[in-house]
């Protein structure tokens, strides 16, 4: 093989008070899928942003095909054939699929924009490269998250000039079925000799798709793995955290008690139908299901974000009427939402404000906010949950994913909630914080709270829950205990494969080994 396509050497980047990159290097060869892993704050995103021309590096060198890149600006980098599939979608909601794919790179015909040609190109790309029928005339706002991700990939690759593609958590919002499609697309690009950097928290994905892996810790590359097998995950984790990681999932000490939340015949008339479920005190109940299975809509309805058409919800034998989230919160039913940055935290508020937001009465007298009490309570929860930084004045936006999640959890711990609905509780959270969040969930259950975990990570559901409800096409298809359940079996149920044969789909798991 020829020399590396991309070589970044000894990159240093400092921000006020932080040395984000401290001599980091990474090297990617042609036709190679190169994994980039590290805990949040290890410098993965910073190094990507340096490559993208978003940040200027303080020192260090970047070469592409052996030629040093001197002026790294977003335009130059794009011209050189480096493409980025960002974690955030950056798509205009009321554009069509075709318009989105060609935004900024429109194809002109003799009479101005050639809409038909663009549409044909887009359709061909989706069919041949991504192997999906998406409907190029549909509007972005009508697409599922997974479909939007594919549009984003199409947009970066449609001009056929990509030399190096950087994927930043491409599968974070996706369900299992769609992940395979993204992987298939990535493998085709690899066959065409395109070099790729693949950033992800999902180690099982890293070990499945990557040829080599660079591990970042504290702004430096601490290890490079040249041979990747399924057994590499453990070594990678060791390199990431710089210590032996204990068990990923906590020991079970909780025990289910009397029924707490019971749902009968719940339907929204559109996305889910006739859902029955019973959650007991001290129980962790999992909900599995692909994107579009009705799982998200069910969770939203249990919290009053959507309206039910029929069916009943009872909390401790009393009917629970939900027309808005405040109704649920008032009864001690709380939600940790899947869209942490949109629905979870008020990003511009600081940790103290966010933690106290749902329980302001308790830190006030006659409506006057007692700032001392508010700060004291925030400091206590910051300590209990080990939130970093420990400063209650830190702005929500600046926190890492795991810490933001802890702040949202902390808000609900402050009100002594009875039922916790956790939607994708560890999406985009690094391994270290995951272990802590799992332990928190276990502790809550052990104290007698009822917990619903809705997740697209089957390993997490099996490792954490007592029972799992599997949703497909808006209905609960299976209800199973997790004792002895394997990831393959669960995946087979969520994809519907179990209903026809015993074959499983692709396992996706945060499991270390």
């Amino acid at each position, binding site marked *: 093989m020829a020399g590396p396509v991309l070589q970044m050497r000894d990159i240093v980047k400092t921000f006020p008070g932080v040395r984000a990159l401290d001599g980091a290097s990474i090297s990617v060869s042609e036709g190679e899928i190169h994994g980039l892993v590290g805990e949040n704050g290890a410098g993965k995103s910073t190094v990507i942003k340096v490559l993208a021309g978003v940040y200027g590096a303080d020192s260090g060198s970047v070469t592409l095909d052996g030629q040093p890149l001197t002026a790294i600006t977003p335009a130059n980098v794009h011209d050189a054939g480096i493409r980025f599939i960002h974690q955030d979608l950056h798509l205009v909601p009321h554009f069509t699929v075709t318009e989105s794919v060609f935004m900024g790179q429109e194809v002109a015909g003799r009479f101005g924009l050639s809409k038909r040609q663009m549409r044909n190109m887009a359709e061909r790309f989706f069919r041949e490269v991504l192997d999906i029928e998406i409907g190029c005339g549909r509007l972005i706002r009508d697409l599922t998250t997974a479909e939007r991700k594919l549009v984003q990939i199409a947009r970066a690759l449609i001009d056929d000039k990509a030399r190096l593609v950087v994927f930043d958590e491409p599968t974070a919002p996706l369900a299992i079925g769609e992940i395979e499609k993204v992987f298939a697309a990535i493998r085709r690009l690899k066959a065409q000799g395109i070099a790729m950097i693949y950033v992800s928290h999902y180690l099982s994905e890293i070990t499945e798709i990557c040829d080599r892996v660079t591990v970042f810790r504290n702004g430096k590359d601490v290890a490079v793995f040249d041979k990747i097998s399924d057994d590499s995950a453990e070594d990678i984790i060791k390199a990431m955290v710089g210590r032996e990681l204990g068990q990923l999932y906590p020991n079970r000490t909780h025990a289910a008690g009397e029924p707490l939340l019971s749902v009968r015949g719940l339907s929204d008339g559109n996305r889910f139908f006739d859902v029955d479920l019973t959650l007991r005190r001290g129980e962790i109940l999992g909900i599995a299901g692909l994107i579009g299975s009705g799982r998200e809509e069910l969770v939203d309805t249990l919290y009053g974000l959507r309206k039910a058409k029929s069916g009943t919800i009872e909390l401790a034998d009393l009917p629970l009427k939900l027309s808005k989230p405040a109704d649920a919160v008032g009864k001690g039913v709380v939600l940790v939402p899947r869209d942490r940055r949109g*629905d979870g935290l*008020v990003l511009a508020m600081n940790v103290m404000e966010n933690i106290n*937001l749902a329980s302001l009465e308790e830190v*006030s007298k006659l*409506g006057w906010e007692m700032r001392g009490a508010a700060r004291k309570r925030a400091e206590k929860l910051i300590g209990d949950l080990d939130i970093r930084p420990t400063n209650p004045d830190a702005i929500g936006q600046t926190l890492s994913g795991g810490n933001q999640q802890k702040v949202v959890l902390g808000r609900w711990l402050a009100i002594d909630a009875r039922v916790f609905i956790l939607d994708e509780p560890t999406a985009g959270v690094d391994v270290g914080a995951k272990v802590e969040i799992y332990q928190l969930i276990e502790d809550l259950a052990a104290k007698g709270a009822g917990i619903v975990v809705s997740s697209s990570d089957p390993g997490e559901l099996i490792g954490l829950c007592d029972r799992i409800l599997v949703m497909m096409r808006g209905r609960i298809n299976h209800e199973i205990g997790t004792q002895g359940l394997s990831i393959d079996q669960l995946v087979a149920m969520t994809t519907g494969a179990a209903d026809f044969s015993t074959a499983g789909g692709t396992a996706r798991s945060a499991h270390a080994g």
Partner: protein
Amino acid sequence: MADSVAGSEQATGTRWTLPVRYGFLVLIAAFVVFFATMNPVFLHGGNLMNIVEGSAILLIVALGMTLIVSTGGIDLSVGIALDFGAAFAVVAMKEFGVDWYTAALIGIAGGSLVGLLNAGLVVGLKVSPFLATLGTFFIGSSVQRIFTNGGGPISHRRMPQEYRDLAVGDIFGIPTEVVIAGVICLIYFVVLERSIIGRRVHALGMQRSAANVAGLKVNRYLIACFIVASMTCAVGGLIASANIRMFTPLSGFAYLLDAIAAVFIGAALHPRGRPNVPGTLVAVLFLSVVTNGLNLMGLNFNTKDALSGIILVSVLALAVAQRKLR
């Protein structure tokens, strides 16, 4: 090592940030010095009181605007609420001979109709605040013209002295309108900046969906804010009508743009860019200083708007620069 890096960064940060952060105060000082040199009368006690008195109604309207901007919206109908306040009070006294305080309450209630309509449009029909209040503005303007047969003022010469005193009287030597504006300002400060109500209003203004998921009664707060803001503006209308002993249709419009400017200048002065009561107060006084100074210099009234525009834009640019430096 990390600490030393942080230290040096902080030092350079401070060196550049200080002049920018206090740039606005420097600007005010520069204007004051300039006006004082141009015309020594500017600094006389009587003139300074003029400035404060002249700020009262704008401050009241700008406070209502601060509340709405804090909810993440904007209110283009503050002038209508002001007009309705004046109209209802004056008509109640003139046609129905009610007491001055009943008239004041009727005026405030009349103003609240504007907020009620806004709330219905924004919360009930999910129209964006900008368009909803624009609609209210058009409707309210038209209603006034119809009611006054094309916009003629309704004067009430034999207005009760107590009502008249809202504008021209004084309490312990302080002009009544200044006292009223001051009290409203204090209430707004306590509620918006120091109470849990204010905390919630700011939260829902910054990120509505997150506030909703956090269990805040978002719609209830929005409705209340629109109504309270319009009632506040109606108080401004009472003072305006007491001052000239008449209701002049569509006169509230004059305050709209200055109020918006004041709120956003005030927000730019906040370290985290939030609309806030002290910021609004400072900005209103500043705009009044400029108006007054220019008047003393005998400059054309038109110059004032140009200057206000330049000041608004430079303060906002200053705020952006400041945030970049942080």
